[in-house]
């Protein structure tokens, strides 16, 4: 009985991890580096959602109506997309021909920049997130309660993942992304504009993080400027677990991390929650170093 409820809890948490993990994995796919600022883009997404819902959208539609919720998501996703594209343009593009380590350290710098600029502008105290989705129970029985927020989190996440799948597999720019990920040099020789593909990847990945930020804020309505660190780290682990660079792998990894965390805390061992989650990561990487769905790559020397 309890297992069913924990399953729902785990999937809704995992769905958000999966959304963030997609951004890590896509950017790794085309650029071969970990964008550590991604978790902070997620935080900005949450705050944009907060300001949009509280101060702007509420002038036109009542908080909680379908129009206002859709608008809040769209605003947050567009602001994050713009932020992601500008981070790439200002911080990573000038370093594209430099060693990967340089870019990696820059990413950590960008991450700290966003966190502490956030503290300056938003203030360090936690804020409550406006109830843009009602938390009424959809299914309510003695053994299981599913509320509207959980339903929305799961459906929006799955919807965005499907949309991403269609973009990557069925569109021209998606084909270009896969080509760049496969071999950047060959792709550019085929006439693909590498810079455009990379910008597009950042736009899509950051928009997903923005949506994740709004969903996270709705589910756990207490947001603060350092809130991106831990979910960002967990999502990164999810991406590695599923096989970094692999899109379905990131979604699967996110779900696994969410479920493991929930089941471990549910048994009363919450002190060991992160230890067990990361222990599983290590165990999987020992047996499958490229992650669950990752392909083994042969490094050319």
């Amino acid at each position: 009985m309890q297992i069913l409820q924990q399953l729902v809890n785990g999937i809704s948490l995992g769905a958000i991890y999966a959304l963030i993990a997609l951004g890590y994995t896509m950017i790794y796919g085309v650029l071969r580096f970990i964008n550590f600022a991604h978790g902070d883009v997620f935080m900005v997404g949450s705050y944009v959602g907060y300001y949009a819902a509280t101060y702007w959208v509420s002038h036109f539609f009542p908080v909680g109506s379908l129009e206002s919720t859709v608008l809040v998501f769209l605003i947050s996703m567009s602001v994050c997309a713009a932020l992601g594209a500008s981070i790439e343009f200002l911080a990573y593009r000038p370093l594209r021909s430099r060693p990967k380590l340089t870019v990696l350290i820059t990413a950590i710098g960008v991450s700290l920049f966003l966190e502490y600029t956030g503290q300056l502008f938003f203030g360090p105290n936690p804020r409550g997130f406006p109830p843009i989705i009602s938390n009424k129970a959809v299914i309510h029985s003695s053994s299981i309660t599913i509320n509207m927020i959980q339903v929305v989190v799961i459906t929006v996440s799955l919807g965005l993942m499907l949309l991403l799948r269609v973009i990557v597999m069925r569109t021209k720019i998606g084909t270009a992304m896969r080509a760049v990920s496969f071999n950047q040099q060959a792709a550019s020789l085929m006439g693909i504009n590498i810079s455009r593909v990379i910008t597009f990847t950042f736009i899509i990945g950051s928009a997903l993080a923005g949506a994740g930020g709004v969903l996270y804020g709705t589910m756990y309505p207490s947001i603060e400027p350092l809130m991106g660190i831990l979910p960002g780290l967990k999502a990164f682990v999810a991406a590695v677990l599923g096989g970094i660079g692999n899109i379905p792998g990131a979604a699967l990894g996110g779900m696994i991390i969410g479920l493991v965390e929930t089941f471990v805390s549910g048994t009363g061992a919450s002190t060991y929650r992160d230890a067990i989650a990361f222990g599983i990561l290590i165990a999987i990487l020992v047996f499958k170093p490229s992650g669950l769905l990752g392909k083994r790559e042969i490094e050319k020397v």
Partner: protein
Amino acid sequence: MTFPLDSILRFRTLAVCSIVACSAAFFVSCKTSGGPAGSEIIVGEYASLTGGTATFGQSVHNGDVLAVDEINASGGVLGKKINLVTEDDQSKTEEAVASVQKLVNSDKAIALLGEVASSRSMAGAPIAQQAHVPMITPASTNEDVTKKGDYIFRICFIDPFQGKTMAHFALGSLGKKRAAVLTDVKQDYSVGLDEAFKHTFSTAGGTIVSEQSYSTGDKDFHAPLTSIRAANPDVIFVPGYYTEVSLIVRQARELGIECPILGGDGWDSPELTKGEEQQFNNTFFSNHYATEDPDSTVQNFVKKYQDKYHAVPDAMAALGYDAARILADAIKRAGSTDSSALRKAIAETKDFPGVTGHITIDENRNASKPLTIIKIVDGKFHFAQRIGPNGEALTPLK
């Protein structure tokens, strides 16, 4: 090896003693030789007027000043006015040490009031103890503070007391028998309350049906709450700080847990219920006092405070006010400002009618006093009940 060291030590102690004695005699002679010192009693106060816990320090300071002004207006003590000398420790431990040193050594305070934070009280206490200057902390709840020496007192309750009293409240006033606990394992405060609650609740006839935990900074509590729901408790104790508790209560209600949820003074923040006021109905927490308490001492204090500062006094202000008044009362009873007589008088404080309840100082120099239970209704904090030091209800449950 022991022998020479021993004698050196003995020599040093002697030397220090004689220096202290000489300088003390010197200063005493200075003091009595005239000046304003003779016409007033100097009380030192160290508080965090700026920095991270500035709101706490300012509230305590306001309470102290209100009490001192009131005492001076009615003629002071022993025919002299009290001069409150305040040092701002900027919410820093090292500044607290410097402040206490200044108050004790150069201002010659006869007693000290402060600090709110247990860590800073523990930094200042050894200096006060060494100089034999009685110190009263208004709000440091950590058990170890008053263990620093026999000159260190407190007028607030200690952490385990809240857990114990909430267990009595759950059993007695609410009539609940099956409790679940959800503890923040990263906070000594939370663990301390939790242990006292579990012990009292199970020895007094209740059953602990589920024990779950979380860590400071967590956002998702669905997992431990689902386990708690499966155990079917009729009351839940969550002794955490408001940041996490605000999410815990919401998520519990979302999961359909409707039973009362109890907590400690870590809940006391206007941020607690923001956004989802309705979900906090049927929750209670322990606190030092409530502005709504019908007791006339409380109502007088609230009125005077509002007249002076145009703000509603919080628990810190009430504790600061009580601390200063207990000190003045002790000076009166001691009949002098002599440090050992004053120490004895503070230790003998019995049934002092404070705003935060009748206060008796026990043999460990802690306060034995009642506690106030706050009930949350539609996001507002209301007075629910006063519970005595031994878990007995002093007023009916509102």
